[in-house]
């Protein structure tokens, strides 16, 4: 296992108290000396009851990215929030743009269902290589 050194940069400065907001921050840049970079987001639940959200990572063309997510599915109490860290591999690139999305599914099986998706856009830059 490669030793991963990551710079969270400004992304780490987020407040865990940012409730009632689906994803914060929604823009960010990270610099890393290693083969991957980290993004920390806070997923918030604006609803009046607990909800389950999936955390998915996509590239800038919305193809899935194989990233490590601390909680790929999070259950968040009403008006609560939870911090999620995503490790994104550079996969040979020096700069990588990704979307990290919090996804919720709403509606009963016999209805027109909605998948709500709030996506932040993040850029990782590899330095020192």
């Amino acid at each position: 296992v490669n030793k991963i050194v990551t710079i969270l940069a400004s992304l780490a400065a987020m407040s865990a108290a940012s409730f009632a907001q689906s994803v914060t921050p929604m823009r960010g840049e990270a610099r890393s000396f290693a083969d991957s970079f980290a993004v920390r987001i806070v997923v918030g639940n604006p609803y009046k009851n607990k909800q389950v959200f999936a955390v998915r990572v996509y590239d800038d063309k919305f193809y899935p990215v194989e990233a490590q997510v601390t909680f790929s599915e999070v259950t968040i109490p009403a008006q609560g929030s939870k911090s999620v860290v995503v490790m994104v591999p550079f996969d040979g690139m020096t700069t990588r743009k990704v979307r990290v999305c919090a996804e919720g599914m709403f509606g009963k099986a016999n209805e027109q269902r909605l998948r709500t998706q709030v996506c932040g856009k993040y850029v990782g830059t590899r330095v020192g290589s």
Partner: protein
Amino acid sequence: MKKIIAITIASMMASSISSFAATGTASFAGTVDSTCVITAGNPGRVTPNADYSNLSSANPGGYASQVTALATGNTFSLSTDVPAGISADTSSSSYTLSGATNRPITDGTSAAPLSSGLTNVSVDMSATRNSGVFTAGAYNSVVTVRCE
């Protein structure tokens, strides 16, 4: 005389303390993150057209799904994906925005910039079969509403 002087001094001190307290301040600071909150409202309903080749929320008896999008900045956009879950030759979604952002019916794949504030989103969907009909049964679809 000493008594009068003492009372006067005490009175002045009390007055000074009182006026100092009256001009005191309490400071507050805070930040609002730039973000987007999507809240799902009432789900929609699709119904068939007269020849049963189309299922749509715009057909008689159907109605759109309701969502709100709250933006605290002006850098976000909203879009909807092609509906999934119903086998059809062509499927599409569309949306209409009102409130902080106003936009007439727009194809879902076209992203609309959101103004800061609360925007009401009506999401419609349609699925069409070029040949054959939608036979009797339950049809369920999923439309993704995205803010990014």
